């Protein structure tokens, strides 16, 4: 099957498993995801730096004291638990147990959605209390940072739901597509880790 070998060599972005011989022994898809994550670190780093710079520029509007730490702690906990269910989903597809895989994948998406709902609720509360995007540099930095993170969570949910749907139609197959799930898991865990940093730096330290 020379043709297949050549095709896989030149064609690993086709949504396939991406598991084949490479110079570094790491699949192309996984290395690409790590590169993207490296880039994203600087993206969030720049947003977080902006926020820290503008911590006290509130224009007389609300500052960090507006944060509801117990509420955000709960939603942080929910997001962290989604990382656990992501790991369980990966373990399930590696073992070939698709029923378990679908449960955990959908569970991860649901936990992520709960987190997003919490963020949406939090935003409406802040706006009601007089902190809008245009209130102050502080509010601009807060909203832009947290909504970019929210957008990343939403994109992750979209990928997870697609995984779930594609496993129903048989496009995502047990074991062979475990590397694909692992890759999406990498993204998901990264988004979680970013939230841990945001929760600590944006919420806990300034409010405490």
């Amino acid at each position, binding site marked *: *099957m*020379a*043709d*297949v*070998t*050549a*095709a*896989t*060599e*030149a*064609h*690993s*972005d*086709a*949504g*396939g*498993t991406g598991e084949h*011989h*490479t*110079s*570094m022994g*790491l699949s*192309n898809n996984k*290395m*690409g995801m790590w*590169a*993207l994550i*490296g*880039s*994203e670190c*600087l*993206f969030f780093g*720049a*947003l977080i730096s*902006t926020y820290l*710079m*503008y911590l006290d*520029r509130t*224009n007389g509007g609300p500052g960090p004291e507006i944060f509801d730490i117990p509420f955000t702690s709960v939603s942080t906990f929910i997001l962290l638990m989604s990382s656990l269910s992501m790991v369980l989903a990966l373990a399930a597809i590696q073992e070939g147990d698709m029923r378990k895989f679908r449960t955990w994948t959908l569970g991860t998406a649901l936990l992520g959605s709960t987190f997003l709902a919490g963020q949406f609720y939090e935003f409406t509360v802040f706006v009601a209390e007089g902190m809008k*995007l*245009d*209130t*102050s*540099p502080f*509010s*601009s*930095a807060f*909203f*832009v940072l947290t909504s*970019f993170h929210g957008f990343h969570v939403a994109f992750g949910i*979209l990928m997870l739901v*697609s995984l779930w749907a594609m496993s129903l139609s048989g*496009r995502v197959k047990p074991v062979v597509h475990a590397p694909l799930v692992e890759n999406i898991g990498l993204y998901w865990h990264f988004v979680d880790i970013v939230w841990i940093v945001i929760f600590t730096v944006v919420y806990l330290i300034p409010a405490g």
Partner: protein
Amino acid sequence: MTAIAEKPSTGGSLFRRPRATTGPASWFTTVDHKKIGILYFFTAMFFFLVGGLEALLIRIHLAGPNSSVLTYDQYNQLFTMHGLTMIFFVVMPLGSAFMNYLLPLQIGARDVAFPRLNGFSYWVFLAAGIFTYSSLFLGGMPDGGWFGYAPLSLLGGDPIGQTVGTAGAEMSRMIFYSIGLQIAGIASLASAINFIVTTFNMRAPGMTLLRMPVFTWMTLVVAFLLLFALPIIGVALWQLMFDGAFGANFFRPSAGGDPILWQHMFWLFGHPEVYILILPAFGIVSEVLPTFSRKPLFGYTAVVFSGIAIGFMGWGVWAHHMFAVGLGPVANAAFGLTTMFIAVPTGIKIFNWMGTMWGGKLRFPTPMLFAIGLVSLFTIGGLSGVTHGVVPHDYQQTDTYYVVAHFHYVLFGGALMGFFSGAYYWFPKVTGKFMNDKLGKLHFWIFFVGMNLTFGPMHIVGLNGMPRRTATYPEGMGWELMNRIETAGALLLAVGVLVYLYNLATSLRGPKTAGADPWDARTLEWLTSSPPPAHNFDEIPIVQERDEAWFRKYGSTHEGEPEKVPAGASQDHRHEPGQDHAADVPAEAAEPDPAHHEPVGESGGHAAIHMPDPSWYPLIVAAGMPIGGWGVIFDSTILIALGGLVIFGGIAGWVLEPSAEETH
């Protein structure tokens, strides 16, 4: 067994992949890195003409004092778009053109790691260009400089005559800038990831990192610079857009925002960007000079590691763009020192190139002339760059034409000379034909003289205090003569461009006489035919040397002189057991996968190498981006939603498209 004959019929009609690899439609769906490279090259050349025309208009306007050829408004738009065009739509895509075409060939791969993502990069880049230039018809082009300093970039006219956004924020032409560059950034980020993975993962057996050609190395360094620099400018551009379109307060001093933040973020991207522009050209001359000196590159490892050093140090010098801002003596001194330090790795490269030529059997066809042009002209620009590192001196130069002279010497005399060198050098590889060498030399000398006439006098008027970015200058400052010379030089450059275009057009219709290795060159791309087949190599080469193609042609006499290897003895018979080289070859190379050999048969077995199928989805996803951008400009939720829909629909199609693996 022949994959092309039994193409799959899987997938619904919506997701069936296009098959044609020739004809006009194939250019819209191509995922072949060589075709994408060619697309990049000609698109960049088109923008080069546009940016050049803008420069000509500026120079004609500045030929005399108190000029009224252009209005101030037009002048601001032209100098802004000249900079944006040349940086983001000419030099960066020219780099991409060479990287796309050469990277897989130089490492012995059949394509890049993610072929569709590669097509996506090109279409997104084109979409960014179209979007940015659409401003011309929507109320005026960006007019706040390529650096887009906030809050200046938040002022200015509303392009479509209405106040939009929350809190009555004034829409500015610079929103075209922020969204256009954002889109261009997505293109570059995608190629950066693609090139990093390709370089690390797709190398031919035996192609260790320190056997890679220097151009491949520079591609890798540039890809890392892009990977880490783009998100920073991305954030800044988003913030500018939120300020301009949605009333946020990142950079408005009146609302507590800090304009210095923009400058830091812009230049933290902007200085690595300088190396993103120049390193591909450094890579090109590091290929051209050894070939025409008939010597290996002098100090290969020094060139590679100084390139890596530039990649690291490039992150620590950004504030030298901001000496006059008032960051304080400690910051200024520190960044002045790092600015001088970064000249060291660059100087190492210059000396290595001279060492390469020293004692070589020099030949001087057009690519060699342009390469030497880079070495000499870039050195002038590099030296004036070091003078910026002297902070008190920089206070005098900042915002004058001295700075304009400096960066045109490094970008025109450096990057563009390098790219033209590459354009002449690899033209036979891409087309199988030669460029006319006489016209090429004429092009070089016109460029060399024209460039020094245009930018040389700018040093002098700059030191005499002529401010840059200013639409006109008064009489009696002693600047008239110099400005007239500069304008004459610019017109000469225009003639040089015409010579090049004429040469390109006629050479493209010439006979295919080049053969696989017209220059007696050293790297892997010269082992395959010109132009290369879609799958690049019939048989993936097994690499045992740094200049593999050279060592397949030449052995070495006892005196170290190259000696022609007898025909037929070179190619595939060098890894017999017992030879010294055998130890260097990795296990899998010593026993090559039989699959690699199978395609080569007497029946022209190319058909058995299945290359990735073309796809429409990269183009579709890319098309969604400017639609969403216009949505922000027109404050139209419908357009934004439509753009988002096209993007997500395209991604869905992309994911569901049957893959090559699944169809077998």
